[in-house]
């Protein structure tokens, strides 16, 4: 690159792009400069004054975090400058003046940047013999975060994060000078959905999580990489596990998915301070109207024989059994359940309880997520509220708008992102399709939102989940994409479905109209490909899902259901849907604890919770992320894959491949994105669903 800058740090010459700060340039060659307020994702504020370095021809020491490099600069850090060394020691001494001797009782102890950098760069002792300031501690700032103001060094990372990145400026510095402290606005709370990140980036133990308080020390637990199962963002996480118990979830930065941020829903899904919900530990079978504990063999035998009796009734009717899977079902579970239902029971009634909208694969649509938001210069959200469904994507949109992208909103304009949008149109329900049609017409006419959109070159269109079920809307969006895809504009359109593995469900064929690998069920050649791998024939008629599946059960057409990790009875169902659940001849439910649906079942099988399973999830961008189990399964409980393999064997399904590795091989033969994820490491494949 022609315009790189050459500078000298501690006598070493290095070359970096223009705009790089000195602290980053030094870091790139392994020179560590102490810092507390600097964070790579935040605008530098240079308040802590610990990163001071000496630059030739500059009379005073300057902060390395805020100063961009310039050509020919000669920088000296502590390695080559006594002045810098004394300055760093002095600044750290200043930071420690009012800092309490809390290390033994502070949650940050052991993972504290202040501890580490004091040891590395600080003075050996302190000269401060006066009384330190005192505050009431700890004070809850919100539902999750506590603040200990005595420990706060006023680096302002938390204030900046909330203001710049989360855009929920709920905390700030109160008073000034010696009397400053961090507080919420009078009467306000820190209830932002991203508040947990402030505790993670706080360089001291001032901001801590209420749920993790006093729970463990950093040297006691193992860090296991995994993926968050709470929504389709698929943020990469570390689970901190001690003796088979998860203590907390921490971020694991993946620039292609999250930016090292987590939303509170995902981060605080693990709450060791709250009593655990009672788990189901034995299989139950309904005998004489009551659910009784039985052995695994007994329960599996009961379930298989009931299903077989129904499927092999005279006439061998198709589609008399069905399956419903919950939103965080893994790819392997969905694939296996789909295969069993299609090959053993001739049924395409596969219903994913979390937004696997088939619009995801309509013309012009593909998975859209973080990489696409980064790429875009114009974003159109249609009836979608990412702050609720996909919070980390919401942060990403905020970031890309901060960098100059333009946002347009069509639909509910009271959503949070509307304040950042340059163009908003309120439309709901039946008006939505008409509004989209009008925009499509405005594109060539260069008026209204159509003009706004057509002035971009890289456009991302994201459709909300409910709207994606409206065929009229989907068709109009298709036309809008076509209208925009001219004159050198590139359009990427997708569905922002919130159900964790919605994209995975479609890809694994857990859909009434699709087979694995996005093959349509009515495509003879595609069906033949799958039949070849499965060595069985597949019914050609599309199945039922969602409400239609339950209503058909109400009419006695579907007689048996296998519900895996879902709880439809707890939602508000119509009387007909509820009747459908009641009327079933055989309802098999796998769940980790008793739910309303399990109470209605004939067979209840205890299954593992997410952290006890290994497998893969596909996020909203189509990225397949593999993960291993963080904790061993509870005694007596099996993972859903194990249950399905046992059921398949009991039902004499020709499953020659049973171990997770074999299963993965088979899925890879049918699904290209899945095959690409086969690097064996968690969450690290470089490709989104878009590439190829």
């Amino acid at each position, binding site marked *: 690159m022609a315009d790189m800058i050459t500078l000298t740090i501690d006598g070493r010459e290095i070359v970096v792009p223009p705009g790089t700060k000195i602290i980053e340039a030094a870091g790139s060659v392994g020179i560590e400069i102490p810092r507390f307020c600097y964070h790579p994702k935040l605008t530098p504020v240079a308040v802590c004054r610990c990163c001071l370095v000496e630059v030739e021809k500059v009379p005073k020491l300057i902060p390395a975090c805020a100063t961009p490099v310039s050509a020919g600069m000669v920088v000296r850090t502590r390695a080559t400058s006594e002045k810098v060394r004394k300055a760093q020691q002095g600044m750290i001494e200043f930071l420690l003046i009012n800092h309490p001797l809390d290390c033994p009782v502070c949650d940050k102890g052991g993972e504290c940047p202040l501890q580490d950098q004091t040891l590395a760069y600080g003075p050996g002792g302190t000269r401060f013999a006066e009384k330190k300031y005192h505050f009431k501690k700890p004070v809850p700032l919100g539902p999750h975060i506590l603040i200990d103001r005595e420990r706060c060094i006023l680096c302002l990372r938390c204030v900046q994060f909330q203001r710049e990145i989360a855009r929920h400026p709920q905390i700030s510095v109160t008073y000034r000078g010696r009397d400053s402290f961090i507080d919420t606005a009078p009467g306000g709370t820190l209830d932002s959905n991203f508040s947990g990140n402030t505790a993670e980036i706080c360089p001291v133990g001032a901001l801590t999580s209420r749920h993790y308080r006093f729970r463990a*020390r950093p*040297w006691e637990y193992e860090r296991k990489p995994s993926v968050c199962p709470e929504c389709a963002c698929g943020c990469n996480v570390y689970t901190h596990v001690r003796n088979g118990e998860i203590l907390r979830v921490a971020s694991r930065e993946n620039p292609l998915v999250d930016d090292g941020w987590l939303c509170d829903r995902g981060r605080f899904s693990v709450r060791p301070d709250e009593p655990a919900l009672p788990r189901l530990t034995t299989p139950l079978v309904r005998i004489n109207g009551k659910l009784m504990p039985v052995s695994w063999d007994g329960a599996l035998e009961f379930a298989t024989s009931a299903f077989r009796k129904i499927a092999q009734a005279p006439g061998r009717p198709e589609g008399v059994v069905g399956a419903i899977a919950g939103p965080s079902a893994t790819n392997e579970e969905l694939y296996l359940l789909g295969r069993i239902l299609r090959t053993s029971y001739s049924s395409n009634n596969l219903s994913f309880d979390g937004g696997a909208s088939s619009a995801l694969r309509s013309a012009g649509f593909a998975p859209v997520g973080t990489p696409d938001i980064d790429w875009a210069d114009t974003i159109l959200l249609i009836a979608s509220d990412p702050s609720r469904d996909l919070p980390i994507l919401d942060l990403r949109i905020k970031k890309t708008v901060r960098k100059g992208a333009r946002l347009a909103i069509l639909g509910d304009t009271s959503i949070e992102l509307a304040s950042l949008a340059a163009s908003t149109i309120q439309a709901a329900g039946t008006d939505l399709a008409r509004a989209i049609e009008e925009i499509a017409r405005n594109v060539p006419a260069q008026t209204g939102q159509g003009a706004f959109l057509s002035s971009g070159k890289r456009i991302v269109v994201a459709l909300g989940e409910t709207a994606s079920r409206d065929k009229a809307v989907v068709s109009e969006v298709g036309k809008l994409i076509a209208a925009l895809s001219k004159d050198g504009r590139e359009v990427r359109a997708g569905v922002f479905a919130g159900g964790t593995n919605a994209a995975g469900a479609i890809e694994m064929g857990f859909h009434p109209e699709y087979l694995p690998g996005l093959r349509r069920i009515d495509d003879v050649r595609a069906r033949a490909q799958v039949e070849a791998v499965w060595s069985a024939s597949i019914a050609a008629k599309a199945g039922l899902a969602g409400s239609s599946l339950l209503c058909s059960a109400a009419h006695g057409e579907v007689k048996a259901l296998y519900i895996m990790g879902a709880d439809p009875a707890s939602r508000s169902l119509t009387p007909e849907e509820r009747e459908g659940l009641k009327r079933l001849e055989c309802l098999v439910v796998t769940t980790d604890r008793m739910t309303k649906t399990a109470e209605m079942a004939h067979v209840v099988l205890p299954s593992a919770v997410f952290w006890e399973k290994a497998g893969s999830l596909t996020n909203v961008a189509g990225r397949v992320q593999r993960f291993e189990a963080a904790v061993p399964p509870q005694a007596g409980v099996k993972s859903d894959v194990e249950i399905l393999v046992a059921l398949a064997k009991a039902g004499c399904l020709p499953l020659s491949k049973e171990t997770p590795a074999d299963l993965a091989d088979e899925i890879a033969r049918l699904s290209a994105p899945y095959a690409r994820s086969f690097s064996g490491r968690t969450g690290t494949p470089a490709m989104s669903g878009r590439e190829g």
Partner: protein
Amino acid sequence: MFLIELFRGMGITLKHFFGKTITIQYPEQRRVLYDRTRWRHILRRHENGLERCIGCSLCAGSCPVHCIRVVAAENTDADRHSPGERYAKTYEINILRCIFCGYCQDACPTGAIVLRKDFELARDHRSKFLYTKEMLLEPWSPPQPVPAPAEVVAEPAGRPSIGALRGPLDSRVAMFCRQEAR
């Protein structure tokens, strides 16, 4: 020729045979252990009875054989175990695994865990060697009130003593505030 050497050797043996023995007749006689001898752990308290242990887990962290288990919890004013916010709800030492190195004693910031002189720790079952907090915590009872000596002169109210005027700033300020309130 070597008979002389033989008798000399035997002579030394005989001298010691009838001389002073150094055997200490345990258990009637006990060896005096040196002050810093490291045997059975105890968890100490402050003078006012509050536990010294604040549940910081530094002892567990420094233990070379990982024989200490600490689970911390929050003090409330209603249920207070130690001064400050934090105390050890669970504190266990597996004495069988312990090597009595004293690293935990060195690491402890409050002087809570110490190794004392009791070495007679034999038991008959392995389970009896997991020492819980109840077993480790130093027993304590409130001190008896001391009767006041008769010849103390009562100070006139409202005037601080000369000694108090030279005390730390806080108490001087506090006195000033008390006078103000009057």
